[in-house]
């Protein structure tokens, strides 16, 4: 059985598709967006979260580390990512979770078993499983297996994707997906490339393909002030929506800088761009603009 790298399983998600859902976050992403909300999702390896505030100075990590990456001096805990080889032994002995693993290897059966725990809630609300990430397609085979197994268990499925994936892979999962939560990060070609590292043409093409196969979609649009919160981008979104036959609506998600604190725990540098946060009025205006163009809005 295939193993996948999962970094979180969240139950009772009420905004990741219809009804009550369990969202499984898979590690690994093919893009590198400047605004990433889940920086812990980017690398397809198990990483270390370091939260020195939680340390109780027990010294367990220092004792097991063969590379001297942990040091406790005068009640202060220092951790060197340079020396760290990610052997993960320290996380195994840390009782206070000052050092913990991000990401866990799981078999598809293990994941499905966890997801099935809330089956009654899916039935009662029209919910199910949502695969998110990272980018679920960066673990394509695992994703496919999870979706197949979920459907075999009569569990409704959503996949959140950035769309920058091979068409053949999209085609392969289609029979097992009930709804795509499809990211439209930007429609300015240059900007998209600059901020995410990939072009948006293929993304939009794939969206058309998914739609042509009769698959339902919800367009998830991150709103970043000073980047894509422009009349032109909004008009483009409306235009994309209009040309889709099976799109259920557009969801506007305001940029928030929560990702930066997580990046800090990972030792990754990511600038906290508070100026990117759109104001409530700007968001409302954007929503009104789309409503005027007869776009169905998802709250």
């Amino acid at each position, binding site marked *: 059985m295939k193993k996948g790298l999962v970094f979180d399983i969240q139950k*009772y998600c009420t905004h990741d598709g219809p009804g009550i859902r369990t969202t499984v976050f898979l590690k690994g992403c093919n893009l590198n967006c400047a605004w990433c909300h889940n920086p812990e999702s980017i690398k397809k390896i198990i990483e270390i979260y370091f939260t020195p505030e939680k340390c109780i100075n027990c010294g367990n990590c220092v004792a097991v580390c063969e590379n001297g990456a942990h040091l406790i001096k005068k009640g202060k805990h220092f951790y060197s990512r340079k020396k760290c080889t990610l052997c993960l032994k320290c996380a195994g002995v840390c009782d206070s*979770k000052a050092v913990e693993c991000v990401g866990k290897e799981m078999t598809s059966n293990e994941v499905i078993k966890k997801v099935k725990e809330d089956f009654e809630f899916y039935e009662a609300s029209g919910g199910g499983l949502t695969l998110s990430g990272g980018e679920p397609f960066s673990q394509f085979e695992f994703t496919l297996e999870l979706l197949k197994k979920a459907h075999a268990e009569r569990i409704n499925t959503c996949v959140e994707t950035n769309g920058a994936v091979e068409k053949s892979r999209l085609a392969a999962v289609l029979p097992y997906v009930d709804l795509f939560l499809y990211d439209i990060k930007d429609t300015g070609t240059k900007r998209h490339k600059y901020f995410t590292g990939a072009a948006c043409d293929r993304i939009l093409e794939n969206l058309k393909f998914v739609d042509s196969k009769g698959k339902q979609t919800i367009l998830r649009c991150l709103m970043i002030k000073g980047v894509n919160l422009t009349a032109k981008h909004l008009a483009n979104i409306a235009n994309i929506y209009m040309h889709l036959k099976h799109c259920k609506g557009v969801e506007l998600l305001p940029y928030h800088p929560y990702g930066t604190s997580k990046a800090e725990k990972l030792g990754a540098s990511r600038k906290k761009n508070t100026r990117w946060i759109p104001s409530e009025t700007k968001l409302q205006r954007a929503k009104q603009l789309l409503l005027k163009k007869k776009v169905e809005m998802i*709250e």
Partner: protein
Amino acid sequence: MEKVRRLSDFTHKLNKTALSGKRGKGLTDLEITLDGNCPQNISEELEYAYCIKLIAENAPIRILPGEKIIGSATLKQSAYHKIPVMKDGKIRFPSVSHLTLGFDFALKMGYNGLLKDIEERKLKNDLDEKGSNLLNAMKMCIEAANTWHQRHVEALQELIKNSRAVEKCNYEAVLKNIEHIPEKPPSSFYEAAQSLYFMFSFQRLCGNWSGIGRIDEMLGGFLKKDLKEGKVSLSEAREILAHFWIKGCDWLGFEGSQGGSGDAMFYQNIILGGINAEGKDITNEVTYLILDVVEELKINEFPIAVRLSSKSPEKLIRRVAEVQSLGGGILAVYNEETVIKALVKFGYPLKIARSFANDGCWEILIPGKTAFIYFPIDVFLILQKTLGVAEKTTAKKYGSFEKLYGAYKKNLSIAIDSFNRIADKDFASGKPATLISLLIKDCIRKGRGYNERGARYTVFSPHAGGLQDAGNSLHVIKSLVYDKKTVKLSGLVRALKNNWEGEEQLRQHILNSMELYGNDSKPADTMVKRVLDDFLQLTGKVKERKGVLRPPGISTFGREIEWREKRKASAHGYRQETPLAINFSPTPGSDKNSITAVIKSYCFMDLKRLPNGTALDLKLHPTSVKGKNGVAALEGVLKAFVKLKGFFMHINVIDNKTLLDAQKHPEKYRGLSVRISGWSARFVTLNKEWQQMIINRTLHK
């Protein structure tokens, strides 16, 4: 969600004044005394009736311009839950709460009907002295209620003489409406609502705090008939109910001494929906109009519990979810399928079981037929004593987990035996509660009062508290001491006695690596279930003795705060100062997964064996109920709760930021209401520890 406005501007104005707390501040501190106002050497029962008579004659009458429902309980002492009559400088009789009176049958008969019953019973000529005193005293209580009614008539006549056209018109309508009720049975929806309020409010004026019970069942038929005959429109009926609800805020703003539980809404519980004795769903227009009213006016004064089942109308579940999503804790839910099963299993006839309501909180009883009290047993303390952690106990050795468990069970058995001996004795105060007895079935027939086993069902419930904490602790001990041998029992007990001092690493290990009750994790849930099953097995040995039923329940109702002192620190990683779990909810902070996991853990228990009930108390962040899907998800939670065989659940929709700000600036949050469990309270009226208890509850997203 868009604000709906269906009620009139005037009603909103009336509501605003009521919610401002002005009414509650205007209660009268009246000194009423029996000395010199009551014949000497009469029976206790008659003395009680004199108290009621004096209250009816002396309490100020308050009728406000424009209000459609009248009958204010205007005495300050009543809002302190006291029968406001003294003798020799002391309150003469104790008051009664934790019950729901038989407003259903009283409404149908009117006071005159009750009087007739009393007369007929007397004619049988087989009452002993106590019995005949009781019935004579009951008659006097009815006369007193009539006096109070008559004083309203006179006050209205006076007001009509002295008021302007607009107000006069309403006074005349109100006067006309009270012409025949509550003496005679009502003939219209408006009369029925008023009659019910009169009966309810007179009890409250006399210091007794009863729940109202199944108001939609009581009033639904009247409304249906009036609607059909065109006597009233839906929007007029909604206004009447709105005024009923506003009237219920009469004591709001009264700064009483409710201690920890704040203003506690005076136990005026309401039940909506569910099936009737014949098994037919009674949900009707009254049910929906009441939901409209509380949604629009945000009145929490009547904490409402809705009876849901797998056959509940879709519309009802949707409306419940919509109102719940607004916060304020107005609505809680019962899964009536489990409740009825539990009652029948315990021995109640099916038809009777179907009529269940609560006691003004969430404990289950049969309204109008039950005298109720309960007895708290701190099960977790029993475990702590068994371990030798609790105060004045010394560490004990147990060679195996089963030996430890056996010792615990033996100690629990001793505690339950001792409860049973207490329950054999006098019920509650044993004192007259004649006004109460009047609205409790079988008191007239037996010629015995509420506190003298006169009720059809006299119930003294053993309530286990801290059961899940005992289960959590045992789960940790079994795993770490006996299975993995990470730590010795003596070492663990020492750590607990020292409040975890110097053992932070072990404590962190437990907190971070052990999944406790509330996470849909079978090892912990199975242990809690074992603790529950044994409690049920032991209490099940005496279901009834000496005329007293003993249906078990699980509760703490906030006692976990005062219980801390004796309990000491817990093996599942909590220091002594941290209050442990409330009712049957997870230990605060230990439910790390989701609201769904908590519900699954709770429903894993055999709840149909808890005829007196138990509660799951949850807190949900407002963002998770936002929008259409948020409400749909909440609807799903309610449906799944029924399917998974839950019992009682309430959900506070609120974020901690608001609560913390309310602690800092209470003046900004006077109206902020939270549900504590079976009751609600204004957050700022709670003392600091109780506020903290609400804040500490795990906030699910």
